[in-house]
């Protein structure tokens, strides 16, 4: 289990000394698509950010392939919520995908043929080649999400951390995003996806992580995505608010 898996051990993250996630312990194998579920404020985004190295950890850590991760890593790609990005930024689809190479390239080196090849194949596999010269605001929500994925592919990341990728997409875009995620999973990528639409969990994911400040349950959808577990996840008040007497 320790190889080809992502392990989270005793992970605690606090904002202004109030814990958002609390002593999380779980492990997920690669080549799976995992839903991170929980009510608002349960720490779904915080968990993804913690794994991506975006927030300071109060305790614990993240192991990938048995190796402890700290700070930035080419193996992990964080895909922010779509509204976190300035879509009027003067760049094209290709420009964003090229940003995926910046980490491995260092900032002063020129693009090599292998960088170009990585960008080409990322565009190709996300079906963005015909759109590559388009300004990014002239894309649909689903296409924007695929641009983020293509950037992660160009980075050659193995763990993709997606923050609410389905939010605001229409039905056909959701279906095509689901298809794309299936393809990535079959290529051995590990997908950790924060999600709030419980009705689509069974069609989309292999595993779930049920979160409410602390870990309620994790495991394969069939065994873990049960009414009882969901009631335990959504039925009580959010951990951080509850134990600190804050209004919710």
């Amino acid at each position, binding site marked *: 289990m320790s190889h080809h898996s992502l392990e989270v051990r005793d992970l605690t993250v606090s904002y202004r000394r109030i814990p958002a996630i609390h002593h999380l312990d779980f492990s997920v194998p690669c080549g799976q698509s995992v839903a991170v579920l929980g009510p608002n404020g349960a720490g779904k985004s915080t968990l993804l950010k913690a794994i991506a190295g975006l927030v300071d950890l109060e305790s614990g850590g993240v192991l990938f392939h048995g190796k402890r991760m700290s700070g*930035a890593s080419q193996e992990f790609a964080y895909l922010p919520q779509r509204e976190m990005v*300035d879509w009027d*930024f003067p*760049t094209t689809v290709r420009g964003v995908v090229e940003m995926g190479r910046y980490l491995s390239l260092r900032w*002063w080196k020129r693009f090599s043929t292998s960088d170009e090849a990585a960008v080409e194949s990322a565009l190709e596999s996300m079906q963005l080649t015909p759109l590559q010269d388009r300004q990014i605001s002239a894309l649909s929500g689903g296409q924007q999400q695929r641009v983020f994925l293509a950037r992660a592919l160009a980075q050659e990341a193995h763990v993709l951390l997606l923050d609410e990728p389905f939010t605001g997409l229409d039905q056909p875009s959701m279906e095509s995003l689901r298809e794309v995620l299936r393809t990535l999973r079959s290529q051995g990528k590990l997908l950790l996806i924060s999600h709030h639409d419980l009705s689509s969990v069974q069609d989309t994911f292999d595993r779930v992580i049920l979160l409410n400040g602390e870990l309620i349950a994790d495991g394969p959808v069939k065994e873990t995505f049960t009414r009882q577990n969901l009631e335990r996840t959504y039925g009580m008040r959010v951990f951080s608010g509850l134990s600190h007497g804050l209004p919710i």
Partner: protein
Amino acid sequence: MDFLFEPFQHAFMQRALVACVVIGFLNGFLGAFVVLRRMALMADSLSHSLLPGLAVGVLLFNLAPLGLFVGALSAALMVALGAQILARGSRVKEDTALGVLYTVAFSAGVVLLHFVKVRVSLMHYLFGNILGVSNQDLWVGYGVALAVLPLLVALERPLQLLLFDPAVARSQGIRTGLLNVVLVVALVLTMVSSLQAVGVILLLGLLISPAATVYLLCDSFPVMLWGGGVLGMIGAVTGLWLSYWIGVPSGACIVLVLGAFFCLAYLFSPRYGYIPQLIKSRHFHEESLARWNDHGHGH
């Protein structure tokens, strides 16, 4: 042709021309970062906070350019830093903190200049005078350009990531806090070097108008940087030339020329201009109406 070149036969106009080229380019180049990072208010605050630094510089070092330079630089950095500290330590947001601090700093500057023994006019610092640019001022301009431009060019990729997607920048190991500081220092240095030419009030126009214009014309980050620089340079030189013939203050004339460029881009930019978009939407409307009629609905 004489009409074009006659103004530049005078030594003071030649110096002014060189100053326009250097600071026009520098400001236009840096403007891209200000526009994309939405730092316009921050930039305006910083430019106004140069004033008390100048006043202290005059009080302590008389009119020595280096003294003024250091004074202005430290005043602006103090306001920038102070706003950060205020915003972090209380519920007041950064724009409010900046607003409070820079108006206080500006007023302190006005009061301090009142006590200055040397005869300096407040108007001079508010609106600048590019015709009064000295050789020393030019050296400050060269120095700042040589320090700032190569640095920003070298940092182009991390800066682009920071501007587009700060979270991903951090997840790729870019030290965004440090990069922000670099940006603010570059900004303040550029402002200080442009002070003599356009003054604290008009600085912002020279800084962001060229970048805002190019932003309406292109979809490429490098083009926005270099294009902004070139446009800033062209605007500054044109403004200087016009001001000579019309006989009006040069700083204001430069900002007016840059403003005219912006208006043209706003109206006529092929992709993002007001008029092309109006025509395009009408075109779409007619097209869909035609389709509707073709399907036999139009009777």
